[in-house]
């Protein structure tokens, strides 16, 4: 049986119908056409599907699409300001903090949530804050440094 949902994605009103068993990640990727969030595991372990739901960082694979009525979700597609990349995105590129890129949207959303709560995190706080995101390529150091550089720029 399908559910009809009215929600807000990256500030835009969006309507969709989905099955009860479809995750928010399925809905974003297959029904709304936003393929930035990735499915690494589907069980909350890798963070590749991270989005910000009503201000909180969550795994979109652990949210039902049906739950989205009246909610507001931020995805990686809403991070840049038009053609101007967000400082986090720019520093990931400048610092080569990605290789295959599959984990990157999740890391960027998690870093975004972290810096909103804590604009000046220590290296340890960054590592703990991003512990729910797995990367099989970079070895994490460049990611941590990119977040530090972006945080610095954002503090001005």
């Amino acid at each position: 049986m399908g559910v009809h949902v009215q929600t807000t994605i990256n500030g835009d009103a969006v309507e969709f119908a989905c099955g009860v068993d479809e995750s928010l990640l399925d809905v974003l990727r297959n029904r709304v056409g936003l393929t930035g969030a990735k499915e690494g595991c589907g069980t909350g372990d890798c963070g590749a599907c991270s989005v910000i739901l009503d201000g909180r960082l969550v795994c979109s694979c652990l949210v039902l699409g049906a739950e989205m009525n009246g909610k507001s979700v931020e995805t990686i597609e809403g991070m840049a300001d038009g053609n101007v990349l967000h400082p986090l995105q720019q520093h990931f590129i400048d610092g080569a903090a990605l290789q295959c890129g599959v984990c990157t949207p999740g890391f960027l959303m998690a870093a975004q949530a972290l810096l909103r709560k804590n604009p000046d995190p220590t290296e340890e706080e960054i590592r703990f804050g991003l512990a729910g995101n797995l990367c099989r390529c970079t070895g994490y150091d460049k990611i941590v440094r990119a977040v530090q550089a972006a945080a610095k720029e954002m503090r001005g």
Partner: protein
Amino acid sequence: MRYEVPVTAKEAASLLMKEKGKAFVLAGGTDLLVKMKAGVVAPDLIVDIKAIKGIKEIKKTATGFTIGAAVPCAALDENAALVKAWPGVVEAANLIGSKQVQGRCTMAGNLCNASPAADSVPALIAAGAKVVITSSKGSRKLAVEDVPAGVGRNNLKKGEFITAIELPKRAPKSGDAYLRFIPRTEMDIAVVSCAVNLTIDGKGIITKARVSLGAVAITALLVKEAAKAIIGTKLDDATKAKLADICSAACKPIDDKRGTVEFRTTVAGVLARRAAETAYTRAGGK
């Protein structure tokens, strides 16, 4: 599979009661959705309780704190009064999963899921917390230690669900702490865990205490003898050694790839001693 979003607890309870098939409560979903994906459960009805009035609120009351069943663990450390009164409970809840998981998971769900290794459960038991259970007939309260019935089983009846967790009022000079052992630094499940909650008097003598162990039996344990051993003391070295021995003796753990019986038994004592030291310091003891 059907999905319902009731706006009152009564409506939720009657949906759960009337369902002929398998009905599941959805709060944070961090256990339910994983189990659905793995094919371990196949719900006929999902009752999302998050739209129930007040169920996502933390309230400071005359008798302590009432934490709604759908409050995500990430919201706990944003409540300064709660962190001040119950730092051990908050630190335990903030060890569950990742930041992403904490954005959704709830203590009530952690409790109902009934894993012996659930992080928030020993801390809630040590705190003397109770749950408010609602059904279409009304509500009842149950001590947290009486909720789990075994691995993955709880003592709620059909048509019942938890609407809130109540933490008691804090006496002055009280402190609690939760510690777990994991082989990594983050994102893991407790191999052994321990929570201690205590109150001291003006001279630093412990007047009240509760000690709980996790991951060393089929449910988290309330170890009354351990509490007795530290009450009336200033947590001197001999008392700490006794506390550790009692906690080790209370363990009935399993051997598995994450820890042997011997390891879990020894570490339970070590964690009890350290958690008691932290709780004592937090209570203002020296």
